[in-house]
């Protein structure tokens, strides 16, 4: 084929594909951090952080005296009606923040007619796409870290005790996972911004996927598990298989992965994520906390899954973007 022949020599491209990467990252991050939409979302997250953490600390003070080694972790997970706990909000707000950052990253440039101009500069498309992604992830990391520090600060003021090293490790690992949880939605929104020419369509598509996983996937997973693995009456093994299949299916959703990580990291008493048979608890002392290292091990597959999904989504977007025609 003639086409293939003309492309073959182009495989050896001159120079580094990352030429200009940091110029893109710096510019995009400056844009993100000053954009109105980012400020609105940050205000929203700050507000929920203050509200939930304040409510949680009030609760914790009321219950002071009950010896609890993990007061700081409770700040994230204690709910007081009518507010859910802060982790519950995070599961909703982080995807929203990530989608808001990236839904117009490529089609916005296209509609603003800056794309062909930028690509006419001595950089590869790789640098533009990765630069935008890194800037998004950086912004996300910055915003979340700031909120983490605020929460810890509030905790110090309200509770009057510093977090233990055990708690610090757990909170840091949870922060890292939260950032990568955002990374998935960032990569997804960016993918849609490559596929759809209209930013509004891309935003809607990303929000649709998010809603699907938040609301419907749990129901669908349990339906699927029941149809694929029916349980004859009295067959315990089949029941276990069914539950395990359902668990597997729900874990395809990043929301599930994230909430399981939150559960395991912020509640040290959780020793397994899945079904535990009484026989497996033989010799265990119920309610004793796991060491942080063991909890990290427990959530390691989740972290791997979240990071892998981010990379896969980014790679799909990368391939599509490389093949896209620049012209209108």
């Amino acid at each position, binding site marked *: 084929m003639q086409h293939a022949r003309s492309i073959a020599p182009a495989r050896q491209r001159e120079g580094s594909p990352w030429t200009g990467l940091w110029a893109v990252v710096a*510019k995009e991050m400056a844009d993100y951090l000053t954009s109105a939409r980012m400020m609105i979302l940050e205000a929203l997250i700050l507000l929920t952080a203050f509200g939930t953490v304040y409510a949680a600390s009030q609760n914790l003070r009321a219950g002071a005296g009950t010896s609890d080694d993990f007061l700081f972790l409770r700040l994230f997970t204690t709910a007081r009606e009518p507010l859910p706990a802060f982790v519950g909000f995070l599961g909703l707000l982080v995807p929203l923040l990530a989608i808001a950052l990236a839904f117009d990253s490529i089609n916005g440039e296209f509609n603003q*007619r800056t794309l*062909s101009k930028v690509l006419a500069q001595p950089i590869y498309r790789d640098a533009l796409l990765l630069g935008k992604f890194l800037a998004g992830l950086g912004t996300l990391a910055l915003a979340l870290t700031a909120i983490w520090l605020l929460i810890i600060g509030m905790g110090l003021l309200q509770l009057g005790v510093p977090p233990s090293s055990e708690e610090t490790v757990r909170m840091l690992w949870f922060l890292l996972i939260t950032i990568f949880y955002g990374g998935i939605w960032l990569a997804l929104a960016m993918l849609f911004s490559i596929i759809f020419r209209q930013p509004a369509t891309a935003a809607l598509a990303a929000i649709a996927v998010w809603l699907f996983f938040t609301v419907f996937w749990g129901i669908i997973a349990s339906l699927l598990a029941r149809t694929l693995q029916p349980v004859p009456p009295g067959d315990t093994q089949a029941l276990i298989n069914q539950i395990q299949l359902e668990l597997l299916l729900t874990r395809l959703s990043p929301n599930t992965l994230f909430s399981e990580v939150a559960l395991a990291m912020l509640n040290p008493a959780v020793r397994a994520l899945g079904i535990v048979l009484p026989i497996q608890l033989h010799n265990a002392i119920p309610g004793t906390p796991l060491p942080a290292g063991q909890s990290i091990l427990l959530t390691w597959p989740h972290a791997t899954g979240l990071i892998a999904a981010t990379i896969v989504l980014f790679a799909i977007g990368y391939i599509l973007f490389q093949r896209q025609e620049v012209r209108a």
Partner: protein
Amino acid sequence: MTDVVIECRDLTKQYGTFIAVDHLNLTVRKGEIFGLLGPNGAGKTTTILMLLGLTEPTGGSVRVLGLDPARQPLSVKARVGYLPDQVGFYDNLTARENLNYIAKLNGMREPEMSKRINEALAQVGLSNVADRRVKTFSRGMRQRLGVAEILIKQPQLIIMDEPTLALDPEAVREFLDLIRQLKASGITILLSSHLLQQVQAVCDRVGLFHQGRMVLEGTVGELAQRVLGGAYRIHVEAEGGDAVAAALHALPDVVKVSANGSQYNVEARADLRAEIARKVIEAGGKLLGLSVDTPSLDEVYARYFQKGAAYAARA
């Protein structure tokens, strides 16, 4: 070789079954202003994108400044300035911030960067609005900012796609002046347009695109000679009826005469004004007016496509 800035040999681009550019041969030399002309969809923008390595050619070869845009895109893009049609900017950034970003993408560093940006802004006359947001800029200002963006690279070749589209006449005039200044500083310029009068005003040579092929190439005068048959169009106003018309027809070198009352349009291969004056008087007519037009590209274009339709019908 050093003299040739752009060289295309049998350059072809196919989208599916649609052939956007069909065996294009094009040579542009250093210091020239070359105009790519043709209706929308004739393949001008596709050609430009291939010159910049933004689209891979399906066949044929391209050399820009002696480099292959598909293999050495960074070197090509570092030396070539590209002004897309309706160039866009980051509207919430200032003019200077927009230029800063482009300069950084080109790997420039302070203090060289600020120096070049200030020079470029001064050259296009935007120094006094450098720190205003681009969203407040008029079309003409945006176009000039686009040129400034190119100038900070100090390019050897500038490619402009429909640069005067949607500009008002005053802005067009200023813009064409700017192009002439650039040429004076030794930069080669390739511009595409379907606004022929403007192209005619600045281009040294033009190439006429039609359905992916370059059907005509040369100076405006050469094209007129080839397409119009005669390069001279003479307006005659004379009273005297058929005798005058017959006299005009009888002149040698006359290609065509069209009459409208006492107005006659004569197309000729030479400047026949003196002969026409004599013949009109000899035929007993009253000569009221006589003038000659230099041929315009508009006519070449219109005439060519009339013929082109005829050629197509025959084929």
